[in-house]
C-alpha cells in the first residue's frame, strides 16, 4: 500500500490504478491526512530549495578559462557567489547567523513565547528577550532568561544592546519601538548553558559590535540613565 499510495500522490500511477487508490483515500480519513501532510512536505522542500535556483549565476563563474592562471579556490568561491550573497557575506555588521539542527533555530523561533518574532520582514525581539532589552541592566541580571551585556549607540544613533539567551548570543538595536536583531549567534556546544559568558566573548559578536558601535559602550551610570529615560 505504501509504495502505491505515494506513487499516486506523485502522479505516477495509470488512470485505473489512480482511481482505485483515490477511492481508498477518500474513504479513509487517516490516509487523507497523510496525503495532505506529504503534499505540504513536498511544497516545503520546493519552497526551501527553489530560491537557490532563482539566484543569478553565470557559467563563466564556474568555469574559469582553461588557459588562465588558476585562481585560488577561495577567489573562485567568492567570484561565483551571486552578487547579493557576496555583499551580505562582507556586510558582517548586518549578518544574522543561524546554526543548523535542533539548536538555536528551533528553540528560539518557535511558539508564542519565542523570544524572536518576525515583524514586517525583519526579526525583532519578543517576549522575555524584549522585556530584558527594555528593562534589564547589565549589572543586575535576572536569575534566569536573557542577560544583557554591552549597551552602546550605533553609527545611526540607535541604542543597541548585546544579549545572551538559551545558549545564543546576539545584538539588537532599538528602532521605532522594536528591538531589531542585527545578529544572532549560536554558542559552540558545551558553552550553551553558560549564561554568564561575557558579552562579546563570541568573536563573531565582538566583530559585529566593533563594526556597529559609535564611540564607547555605555558605563553603568549611563546605561541606567538611558533606561530610565526610555532609551531616548
Amino acid at each position: 500500500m505504501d509504495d502505491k499510495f505515494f506513487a499516486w500522490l506523485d502522479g505516477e500511477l495509470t488512470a485505473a490504478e489512480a482511481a482505485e487508490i483515490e477511492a481508498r483515500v477518500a474513504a479513509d480519513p487517516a490516509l487523507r491526512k497523510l496525503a495532505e501532510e506529504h503534499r505540504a512536505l513536498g511544497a516545503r522542500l520546493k519552497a526551501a530549495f527553489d530560491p537557490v535556483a532563482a539566484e543569478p549565476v553565470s557559467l563563466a563563474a564556474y568555469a574559469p578559462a582553461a588557459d588562465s592562471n588558476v585562481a585560488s579556490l577561495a577567489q573562485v568561491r567568492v567570484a561565483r557567489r551571486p552578487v547579493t550573497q557576496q555583499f551580505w557575506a562582507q556586510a558582517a555588521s548586518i549578518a544574522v547567523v543561524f546554526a543548523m539542527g535542533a539548536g538555536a533555530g528551533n528553540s528560539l523561533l518557535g511558539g508564542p513565547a519565542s523570544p524572536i518574532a518576525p515583524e514586517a520582514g525583519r526579526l525583532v525581539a519578543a517576549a522575555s528577550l524584549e522585556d530584558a532589552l527594555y528593562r534589564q541592566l547589565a549589572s543586575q541580571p535576572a536569575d534566569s532568561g536573557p542577560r544583557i551585556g554591552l549597551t552602546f549607540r550605533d553609527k545611526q544613533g540607535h541604542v543597541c544592546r548585546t544579549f545572551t539567551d538559551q545558549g545564543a548570543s546576539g545584538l539588537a538595536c532599538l528602532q521605532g519601538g522594536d528591538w531589531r536583531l542585527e545578529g544572532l549567534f549560536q554558542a559552540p556546544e558545551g558553552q550553551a548553558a553558560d549564561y554568564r559568558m561575557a558579552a562579546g566573548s563570541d568573536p563573531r559578536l565582538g566583530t559585529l559590535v566593533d563594526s556597529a558601535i559609535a564611540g564607547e559602550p555605555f558605563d553603568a551610570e549611563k546605561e541606567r540613565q538611558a533606561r530610565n529615560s526610555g532609551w531616548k
Partner: protein
Amino acid sequence: MDQQRAFDRDLAVLLPRLRRFAHALSRSRADADDLTQMTVERALRSREQWQPGTKLDSWLYRIMRNLWIDTVRARGRIERRTAAAEEADGVAHDPVPGIEAAIDLQRVMAAMDRLPDEQREIVALILVEGFGYREAAEMLGLPIGTVSSRLVRGRTALMALLGEA
C-alpha cells in the same frame, strides 16, 4: 564549433537547477558551489561524450551525483560533517526579505543531512528537482521499485524531522 556553443548555452540554462540539486545533495552552501564547479568542469571537458538528442539534464545530474559520491568517499563522513557544522555557523544571509526562506533552507538541509545517502539523492531528484520515478531510476541505474521504496522511507523520515515545524 556551433555545436560546442549550443552545448555551453544549454549548460548555462541548466546551471541554476544543477546548483539547487547540489544544495540538496551536499546540504552545504560551500560544498554545493564546489560540487557545481566540479560538475561544470567535468561536463565541459567531456562535451564529446554527450550524445545530442539525449537529455542533457539527466546526463549532467548523473555527473554531479557521481562526483558527489566520489567526494564523500574521498573525504569520509566525519570530516564532512565537521565542515558542514562550520559552514552553518558562518552562513550570512540578507536579514530583510529573504530571511524566512534562508532559515528554512538551513532547516531543510539539516533534515536532509539525517537521511542515508541513498535516500537523500532520490528525495532530491524527485521531490526537489521534480523528476519522475522512471527518469530518476535511469539516472541512478536502479530498478524503479527500489527508487519508489527508498523514496517512501526518505520522505517518511523527513516528515518526522520537519513535521511540526
